């Protein structure tokens, strides 16, 4: 990982950042947090860019970001990795799902700064040398999408679903894939795809 970490970043303090955001957006809930941080230096303008290094699909990416930038917007707007999709920006639809240190997270609710030092895997990082990942192939074989907009999130979620051990039955797959909305409603085909790919993925 890069030598940059939040504590050493020049002029940036995570507690001050939290207080600044809390002060502007979340007053009722975090008034106490602001009070506790009263001795901290005044929050700096969050729009001032800060240096961030994100490790995405095995490569370090140095960026200067508005401190409020989410992982999703960092990927889409700054790294031009547009495979991860914005469907709600509220963590309600799952279209932005990526793996962070092998856990599935909604990247729209994860600040880029909070993902420093962690391994981010996106849909662009799955295929190797133009060879599709078994889950990608299974989605094609089972026609597990129509418009395709939720598909990157579904596939990332499906990978985690299998690795978590939640692909043992149709009912399990349905339950553990329910954080990803598919408005075209390809659900039965998504279940079939996860079932097809699961043994191969578990084999490694």
């Amino acid at each position, binding site marked *: 990982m890069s030598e940059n970490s939040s504590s050493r970043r020049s002029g940036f303090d995570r507690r001050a950042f939290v207080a600044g955001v809390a002060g502007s957006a979340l007053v009722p809930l975090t008034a106490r947090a602001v009070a506790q941080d009263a001795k901290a230096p005044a929050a700096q*303008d969050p*729009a001032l860019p800060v240096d961030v290094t994100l490790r995405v699909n095995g490569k370090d990416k140095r960026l200067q970001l508005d401190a409020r930038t989410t992982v999703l917007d960092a990927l889409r707007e700054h790294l031009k990795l547009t495979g991860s999709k914005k469907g709600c920006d509220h963590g309600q639809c799952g279209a932005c799902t990526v793996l962070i240190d092998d856990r599935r997270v909604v990247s729209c609710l994860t600040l880029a700064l909070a993902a420093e030092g962690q391994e981010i895997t996106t849909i662009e990082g799955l295929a190797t040398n133009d060879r599709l990942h078994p889950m990608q192939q299974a*989605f094609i074989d089972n026609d597990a999408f129509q418009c*395709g907009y939720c598909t990157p999130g579904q596939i990332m979620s499906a990978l985690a679903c299998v690795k978590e051990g939640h692909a043992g039955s149709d009912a399990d797959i349905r339950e553990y894939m329910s954080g990803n909305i598919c408005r075209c409603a390809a659900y039965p085909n998504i279940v079939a795809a996860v079932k097809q790919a699961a043994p191969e993925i578990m084999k490694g």
Partner: protein
Amino acid sequence: MTAAAPEPKANMGQPVPRYDAASKVTGRATYASDMPLDNPAHAFLVTSAIAKGRVDSFDLDDARAVRGVIDIVTHENAPKLKESKLFSNGGYAGTTIQPLKSADIAHDGQIIAVVIAESYEAAREAANRVKVSYTAVAPSASFGSPGTTTAAAKGQNAQFKEDPQVGDFARAFDEAEVKLTASYDTPPQHHNPMELFTTSCAWMGDNLVIYEGSQYVYGLKNGVAEQLGIDADKVRVVNPYVGGGFGSRGSMTPRTAIIAGIAKRLNRPIKLVPTRDQGFTITTHRAETRHEIRLGASRDGKLVALRHEGAEVSSRPDAYCVGGTKTTTRLYACPNVASLVSIVRADRNTPGFMRSPPEVPYLFALESAMDELAVKLNMDPVELRRINDTTVEPIGGKPYTSRSLMACFDEAAKAFGWSQRSPQPKSMSDGDWLIGYGCAATCYPTQMAPSAARVRLQRDGRTRVEIAGHEIGTGAYTVIAQTAAERLGVPLDKVAVFLGDSELPPAPVAGGSNSTASTCSAVMMVCDQIRQRLFKAVMPSDSLTDKAKETVGLSQAPSTQAAKSDRPLDIEKAFDALGAGVVEEYGEWKPEGAPLDSFKAMHSGHARIVGGHAMKDKIAYAFGAEFVEVRINRFTHEIRCPRLVGAFAAGRIMNPRTARSQLMGGLIWGMSSALLEATEIDQRNARYVNDNLADYLVPVNADVAGVEVILLSEQDDHINPAGAKGLGELANVGTNAAICNAIYHATGQRIRKLPVRLENIEA
């Protein structure tokens, strides 16, 4: 073969995987929201917190103080835009309510300001710091609200020309042996496609490029040009992939010209990413409807009288309506029919097309009523449909071009196990679960519109098809590629298809399920033009040219199938004879009965859609039958829907894989329409309450268990050269009725208002 790729039956194409499959599973598919822009500014909308009144003043000091803010646009400094007529009145717009034109507010969530900043984050923060002073007036929210006005749709809406009627309903109903009168309600719904309503605009001198998910790139191009007052040739709309449409992207919304105007003024590309909740009010939706159905029948089940009255909510200025009586008055044999559609005006944003706009609400009413009538007659509901099945629609006496309704009922009933049903309500259970079986008919008009295409064939067989059609998830790339490969006799993997760009030859709106029939018919015709040129090159004699004419079709409408006697064309030899390396043809196809101005209209972004009940001497619909099992917990009243079975017949099935997926998704949409989806309205404030994907319930994976789609073989030579009936809007019709019919069977309780939630179950 997997379940996803059913074995083709007669008159079906191959279930090949999607043309765009690899792009979509790797994240390489670039939707309009993904298009890279050169140093864009970011826009964030500020929307109205009141539904009616005016903006008195803005206090923008706090917002302007946010670092990175470039400009804040309100009605006081907005670009001047020209008006556009409503889509259904021959214009491009989904609403004639034009935001930022004045201080007036016509509905909740109307755009009242646009913040432009260096970053999305800064634009969002500044938008939240815009302070607005309003003068608010009490708004009318919906049916029954004080201040609404009601009038017949006929005479207000150019597309709703008359209320269908025949015979003497009043007398026949009066004299009927068995009578039913019942009222039904359906709620407002929002499309909520997964891709947000993003718009990016970039100018190069006087030329504008718009990246926006659209179901009608020619409509949007011409509409924005009209609003900006510029030549349409200077506007280009690009969206090779669309992240779901369902009708929400068929007509132009006001946001596009506003963003284009601001980008021009700033001389910088602008990217607007509206929030999910803003999407509820800056685009269209399915309006709430109310129905009264009267059915009169003889004791043996023959319908003698049918009346369907429907009312729909629209906005103050726009007489939008779906008028589904055009379908419900023609579905069954009945000599005495009356109908009336009314529009109720409220202080709301203008509604618009949402997947099967007329049929979803209107068939809910009719197909629920048919089930109620079957109960009154003590008759199997399938048999009631059989008794009233017809080959001729009753209003104009026109024959259906093909109609496999009862074949669908029989196939689906068999697959479902309908014969296991004990007819008495509350007679089936499994432990704590009451079980109900229900069924309903579905149908959707077969529609076509003029379309152009350009096809280029190289001597090595590589083929390029260009058409400004739309890939909204339906499989447009795939079926167009299959059509060209089949027609030219080249391998499928040599065909490249280009869609979603208004620089390409015009295609109609991806609406009314007309796309496959229209675009594939155009592609067939243009491929035939290429074949003619090649045939003439290798067989220059008159007699052989006549043979070429016969086999490849010189007429405006190509024959449905390539003639059997067609010998394979040796492309290499033909190119040698022609002395050319490439053959390219452009052509414009129009369906039978299309008006004289069709091609002119096609280029200016007006789709002259024909078909359905509006054909001269025939009527064309696709049909289906749907059976559902519901399980209701007798203590908690939780409602589950473990099985959905549908059988469908829709002419030629171009690709059983993409067809099955669309129909499967449709069945789930239908289930959702019955049990989940409703946009809740705050009646005091005329405001949508659940405007996000956590509170607006759409199905998730755990809501869906067994879904079975049965594709029936059907051939129809009277609709279009492709022989295809649109099926994208077929399966989500009638499902809502089938589920309520099943709930009645499970509980003995008839529910006539959607959606049905556990608190609505009394038993």
